[in-house]
Every structure is written in structure tokens, then in C-alpha cells.
């Protein structure tokens, strides 16, 4: 098997029926997506909300049909061979409220293990080992409806891991978790991948640190299209032609948003401190020679430069350069 996941020119369109004077309309969630994920890879799909990440993962998990194009998981077509694909995969979503409130963690995991045909002895042995490994041992008998968000997400991750899938899909696995729990979750993901080098994991996220930290390769997806695909290091290296700066400006008096329209400047972050009357702008230029013109433009809006610094290129900067907008969430979940 050359590819764990392969898509070629994958398109998915949603039709919205006509209603109250409005004609029927179409929304293209995925537009010609071509991807090739190798066995053993931890592959990230990075994109903002609405980019098409979840739609793609649902198609790969046999929960949604593609409108057109080729989609294979473990060398099997997800439409024609969906039963055989299901035997080889599992999926966990972030913020997933699944389960039955009256069951305990251990009972709940046993129930889901049965859908994959694990014997009770094998299932419970695996569940107990993972519950201990992921720090849930003392809560194994706690009912689901009494779990915190973090504990519930740990349980969900175990649900995905315990069936030992060839390909595991994690859709925003750290969504809504605080930084500490998210770090733990990323640790579990790394451990699970390290246990067996043939396992493949596809992870969607809009947290840049997560993608940079975990993934062997990343595809940047925006407006349903794959804009770039490579290792985080290669993506950053390819972007080195640009220059990233951060400038603090005073005296803009409500004109801060106008900074976004400055010619030749791609803004990746804009924060205003009302108390101090200052605005901090992170932006990318094609090269250093464009800096004087950019500063002149800022000053023409009434801004006075308080501080200026040059920065290392991050995946966020790559994303902004490719998508023309910021994800706006980097660091929230780091």
C-alpha cells in the first residue's frame, strides 16, 4: 500500500434548497482537493473554520459522499468499499459530547469497543491500560455526565485509539481545551503514534502551534482548496523570501483598521490597547526594501512608531501569505 489516504481532484458541493423567494444555491466546500498521505505519517490539515477540513474528514470516514473525484483510505475506495474502510479506521472530534451520561468511562469505552468486535477480555485489558496511561484511572468509575471537558476528551481519544485503527482521524482534537490539557492530549497522540510506526493519523486543526508541534507534514486548506502541502519546516523555509515585522504605533485615533489596507503589506495580527492608546501590527513584506514605504504609509494615517522589530517566520506567517488572512487563533491553545 503506497498511500494510507489518497484523494484526487476531490470536490464536495452542498445544495441549499429554494426558500421564501430565494432560488436554490450551491456551496462548494471542497474544490479539487488532491492529497497523498503516506502510511506511518502524522499529517495535519490546517485551515480556518469553514475551510473544508471537517467535510474532508467526514468523506474519508465514510460519513459523507464526495460529489466527484477519487477518495481512497488504505487503498480502498470510500464509496464502493465503505464497509472494509470502516474496519480500518476510527475518528474522534474535538468538543465531542458523545456517550451515555449514566455510563461510567470504563463502561462507555467497552460499549464502543464492541462495535469493532473486540472480545470483552481484550477490550477491558486495553481500556484499563489506556485509562491508566492517560491519567484517568481514578475516574474510571465516574459517570460520563460528571466529567469535565478535558476528561471527556481524554476518554474520546481513548475511544479512537483502543480499536487500533490503521488510520485514525482526529478532527480538532484539542478544541475548547485549556493549554495544559491540550498539551497532554498532544502527548497522548505522539505516544500512540510512537507505539506502532505503521499507524497513520490525519489531524485537522486551526491551531498553528499544534500543527507545527505534531505533524510530519501539513496541508494548508482554505476555501476548500489545498494551497500548500509540505513539512512545517519546508513551508517556512519556502517563505523565507518574505520579511515579518511587528510594529507598535501610537496616535492612530480609530484609524487602526485602515492599516490592513496598506499597499504591499499582508497583516497577520492587529491588536489595539485602548488604555495605552497604542496599536500593535504584525505584518509581512515581500522583502526588507519595502519597509520604508510601509512605515511611511502608517505614519500618513497619523501613526507614530513606538517600537519596530523583525521576527522569525512562523507557520502563521506562511498561512497568512498563502490565504491572505490570519487564522487568529495561534497561541490560544498552545
Amino acid at each position: 500500500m503506497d498511500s494510507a489516504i489518497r484523494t484526487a481532484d476531490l470536490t464536495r458541493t452542498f445544495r441549499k434548497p429554494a426558500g421564501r423567494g430565494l432560488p436554490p444555491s450551491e456551496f462548494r466546500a471542497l474544490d479539487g482537493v488532491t492529497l497523498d498521505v503516506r502510511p506511518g505519517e502524522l499529517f495535519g490539515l490546517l485551515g480556518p473554520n469553514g475551510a473544508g477540513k471537517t467535510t474532508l474528514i467526514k468523506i474519508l470516514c465514510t460519513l459523507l459522499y464526495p460529489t466527484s473525484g477519487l477518495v481512497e483510505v488504505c487503498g480502498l475506495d470510500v464509496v464502493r468499499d465503505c464497509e472494509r474502510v470502516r474496519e480500518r479506521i476510527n475518528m474522534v472530534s474535538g468538543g465531542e459530547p458523545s456517550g451515555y451520561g449514566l455510563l461510567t468511562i470504563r463502561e462507555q469505552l467497552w460499549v464502543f469497543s464492541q462495535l469493532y468486535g473486540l472480545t470483552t477480555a481484550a477490550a477491558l485489558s486495553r481500556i484499563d491500560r489506556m485509562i491508566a496511561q492517560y491519567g484517568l484511572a481514578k475516574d474510571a468509575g465516574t459517570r460520563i455526565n460528571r466529567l469535565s471537558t478535558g476528561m471527556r476528551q481524554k476518554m474520546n481519544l481513548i475511544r479512537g485509539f483502543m480499536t487500533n485503527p490503521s488510520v485514525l482521524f482526529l478532527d480538532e482534537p484539542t478544541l475548547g481545551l485549556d493549554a495544559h490539557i491540550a498539551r497532554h492530549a498532544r502527548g497522548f497522540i505522539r505516544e500512540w503514534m510512537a507505539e506502532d510506526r505503521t499507524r497513520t493519523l490525519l489531524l485537522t486543526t486551526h491551531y498553528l502551534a499544534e500543527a507545527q508541534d505534531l505533524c510530519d507534514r501539513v496541508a494548508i486548506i482554505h476555501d476548500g482548496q489545498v494551497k500548500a502541502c509540505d513539512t512545517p519546516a519546508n513551508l517556512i523555509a519556502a517563505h523565507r523570501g518574505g520579511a515579518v515585522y511587528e510594529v507598535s504605533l501610537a496616535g492612530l485615533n480609530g484609524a487602526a483598521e485602515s492599516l490592513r489596507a496598506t499597499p504591499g503589506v499582508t497583516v497577520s495580527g492587529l491588536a489595539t490597547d485602548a488604555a495605552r492608546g497604542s496599536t500593535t501590527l504584525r505584518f509581512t513584506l515581500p522583502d526588507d526594501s519595502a519597509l520604508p514605504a510601509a512605515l511611511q504609509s502608517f505614519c500618513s494615517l497619523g501613526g507614530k512608531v513606538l517600537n519596530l522589530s523583525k521576527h522569525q517566520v512562523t507557520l502563521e506567517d506562511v498561512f497568512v501569505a498563502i490565504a491572505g488572512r490570519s487564522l487568529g487563533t495561534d497561541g490560544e491553545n498552545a
Partner: protein
Amino acid sequence: MTALGRNLRAIRARAWIRVVAANRELSWLLFDTLLPALATAGYIFVYRALGAPAAYEAYVVLGGVMTAFWMNVLWGMAAQFFWEKDMGNLDIYMMAPISRMSILLGMAVGGMLGTAMRSTVILALGLVVFRIRFEVSGLAAAAGIFLLSLTALYGLGMMLSSLFLLFGRGAQRWATVAQEPVYLVSGFYFPLRDLGFPLAAASASLLPLALGLDAIRQTALGPGTGFLPVHVETAALAALAALFLLCARRTLQAMESRAKREGSLTLKWE
């Protein structure tokens, strides 16, 4: 693990959830057992006040027993996918390498605990409190027809579940709207033939509950007030059971396919 083994495990696990939940939330004993028994008792008192033949009291008790199974089919089985989606479990079931019929069957088997309890209480109420007598010689046949009715009934439930899968909350509303009319045209509390031939025939053609109840009444209480001869009703029930199970398999596949095409399987309700 073979596909059959996996599906049997899935049925057991899904049924187990129902049983455990029932043991941990005992309030259902009041709502699902005692209150329906009171409703059945109410009808018996009405018939007694009107001086109706004693057989009518037995009709009511058997109707009350069958109501429990209808409720399990409608809310336990047909609406199951709706509830699973509401709880965030539907994706997990749909993605698992098991038949959708196994999930539904597991739910129905698990629901039998509550259903059997409700039926037993109503039956005990009839036998002990109201001293209703059944034809002992016809009980074996009645039990056979009862099992056949259940097969047809659960086949219908599986068919309905595919509608819930596709239409979600809309289907739930229609099921609520249809609940009382189904009670009426199934003859839960009176002989089916009292509906008149056209309505009784229409009901018997669509609702295995109506046919099964009428046949059970004839075998357990003796002939005289049945809509059709027992052997005809039994044959019709067998045909309905086969038809519904076959159609359920096809409609579940078709509806899942449509839901995956339209995206309604994965999108939140409304």
C-alpha cells in the same frame, strides 16, 4: 472477528446500555409502568359503568399490553437514530463496521426490559384486580401470534427509523401526531371490526399491531368478535413481517445513502 460476531456484540452492547440505564434511573417504573396501568384501568371502569360484555375488559387489557410494544417500537426503535444524533453518537455508530439493523435491534432488545415490565403489570392488573379470564387452550397459539406480531412490528420500526434518520426533528413531530390515531385505528381498547370494514381493512393492511392484536384476542378470548379468521390474520402477519424486514434493510440503506449525499447525516438538526 467475523461480521456476524461483530454485529452480535454490537446488539449486546447496545441492549446493555438500555438495561444499565433502566437500573440507574428507576423513575421509569412510575412513568412507564404504573401510569399506563392506570389508563388501562380507566377504560375497564368505563366499560363496567356502561354494562359492556366482560370480554371488552379483556380487550382493553390485551390492548394495554400491546401498547407497550408499540411505544418501544416508536420511541425506542424508530426514533433511536434521532436521539443518537441529538446526543452526538450517530457518527460513531455510522462509522463503525456494523449493520444499522444491529444497532436498532440492540436498542429494541434492551428496551424489552421496560416493555416487558409494563406489559406484565397491565396483565397482572387484569388477572388479579379485575379477574379477567383467558382461554387457556388458546394461549400457545396466542404466544406464537404475539411473536409474529413483534417481528412485523419491529420490522416496521426499522423502516420508520430510516425516516427519522433523514428527516430528524420533522419525523419526530409526525410520529407524535400519529400516536393517537394509531391507537384508534389499531383498536387498542375495542374490537377492530367495530371500526367498520373499510377502516379496519386499511388499518390491518398497514399496522401489524392491529392484525396481531385482533388475532391474539381471538385465540386468547375465543372467536366471535374478530375482524378476519385467525389463520388469515396470521398469514397476513407473516407476510407483513417478511415485507417490513426486507423493506427495512432496503430503506435503511437508501436513506443512509441519501443522507450521505445531501449531508444530513452529519449536519446538526435544524
